[in-house]
């Protein structure tokens, strides 16, 4: 799993770098020479969707998405664990819905072409099912890791 995470990190860094380079180049070209690279707009937008979704998958792995933990924290080790399991299941259920719906619309998306890139939109819409599958995988992993932890009484932060 660590190898997969590392690979996603490389892809994210690479894509973010390409987006940044392309938009900088476009801005400089337009500002200095009044010329516009036609592909910049679509390329950077669609690559950003991939980048953001893959980065969001990394955050699921790290449990880094913003959430409110007041109730889970107040419930103690056992209750907190049940509630955590429930919350991960909600996450997975949503992701499964996204995957199913994405697969359903793929045939019609495949026929759509991007305006300037001459590529099928499917290449970019694929970001949704692919990263949703990764997110669901990571959420499932976090759930299993949490459930396998031995239950111990919470130690106050000061004595850790």
């Amino acid at each position, binding site marked *: 799993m660590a190898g997969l995470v590392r690979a996603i990190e490389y892809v994210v860094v690479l894509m973010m770098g390409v987006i940044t380079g392309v938009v900088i180049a476009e*801005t400089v070209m337009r500002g200095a020479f009044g010329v516009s690279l036609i592909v910049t707009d679509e390329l950077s937008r669609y690559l950003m969707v991939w*980048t953001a979704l893959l980065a969001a998958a990394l955050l699921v792995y790290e449990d880094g998405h913003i959430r409110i933990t*007041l109730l889970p924290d107040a419930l103690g080790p056992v209750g907190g664990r049940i509630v955590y399991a429930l919350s991960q299941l*909600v*996450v997975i259920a949503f992701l499964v819905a996204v995957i199913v719906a994405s697969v*359903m619309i793929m045939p019609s998306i495949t026929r759509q072409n991007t305006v300037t890139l001459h590529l099928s939109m499917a290449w970019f819409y694929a970001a949704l099912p692919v990263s949703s599958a990764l997110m669901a995988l990571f959420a499932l992993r976090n759930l299993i890791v949490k459930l396998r932890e031995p239950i111990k009484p919470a130690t106050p932060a000061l004595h850790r």
Partner: protein
Amino acid sequence: MTPTLVIFAVGVLIGVPVAFALGFSGAAYIVLSEKARLTVLPTVLFGGMDSFPLLAIPFFIMAGDLLARSGMLDRMIGLAMAAVGPVRGGLAHVNVMASMLFGGVTGVSLADTAAIGRTLVPSMVKEGYKPGFAAAVTASSSVMGAIIPPSVGMLIIAYVYGGSLSIGKLFLAGATPGILIGLTMMITVALMAAPRGFPKSDAGWSLVVILRQAWRAMLGLVVPVVVVGGIVGGLFTPTEAGAVAVAYSLVVGTLLTRSLGIRDIAASLLISAKTSGLVFLMLAAAKLFAWILVINLVPQQLGEVLKGYIDSPQTFMLAVMLLFFVFGFVIEGVAAMIMFIPIIAPLAPHFGAEPHHVALVILMSVQVGLFTPPVALGLFIVCPFAGCSIKDAAIEVIPFVIVIMLITLLVVFVPGVAMWLPRLVGY
């Protein structure tokens, strides 16, 4: 509609990440109501993220991060040290002033919290400041990052608002209140200095040193001028301004200060991608949720109900301020804005409130939550450096909470405080 809201509320309460709680309840609505087919889900989510203006978010995060890695924050601290270091409570003043100066470089709160926590806070504790106070002043002053332009929070608000806001106008509106927060915090420190016996260094003032430090900090000080000036002057769009800021910080970091290596750049790319991933996913899911609210006429109905209680733009803004103060307190600023602006924004015209003014008040109100428990992300970052508990710092933040509330109230009741600058350049 009601089951959707209940599902959302229960989801958030049991700790489902906000983005997924929004998405799940949105998907549940589609399935239960049969008003749309589930296949709209990918289209709405993709559409919520596919936007050229949104690219400004990763760029401004990256530019601020790269400039901090280029040693620009240290130069701001150097300038602040020369300017306000010699007074009683010098390091506390330096802490606030460095955040104020760096606020023009970074677009996010807490961008400087860890760095100042690492450099200034241990010296403060060694000099005899209470650890809780050192942590409180660091966390609370760093909120200027989001209020002084450039501001990623403002880019997010503008997107959630639906593209009717001008980024240039919003950026300019934040400048004066942001600086006022910094100055008022410094006055607060000055008032505490004698009674609490803050230390005073032996160093004296020297105009030569101040000018030399200002010259060294110049590379960072010009960033807000170029960025905001470029956007306001119509030279480039906010996204292009972000790209220019990234290009500038790369030049500064690699050629001028020579402190940026390839690893720093990769780390910066990863951080900006991750922060954007967090925000984009919430924005996309919120788009789905906002669409459901709109087709169910929730904002209209809410507006009708509120009309009985609210009779002026000021009362409306006051209500908005208190609402977002509470939201920021229990949720987290960005999530609170993305969740609730779609409901609040359509109400503003009913009560004659100017949208940029409302947006600024919302942004300022949610900042308080960054250093007040339970959320208090800022305190969680800085307390380990100070060696204090969250509880120690939580008491010390109270005066700074009051400062931000007072300046926000000032902006609510005297709109000119914020809006004179945008007006001056013709917005």
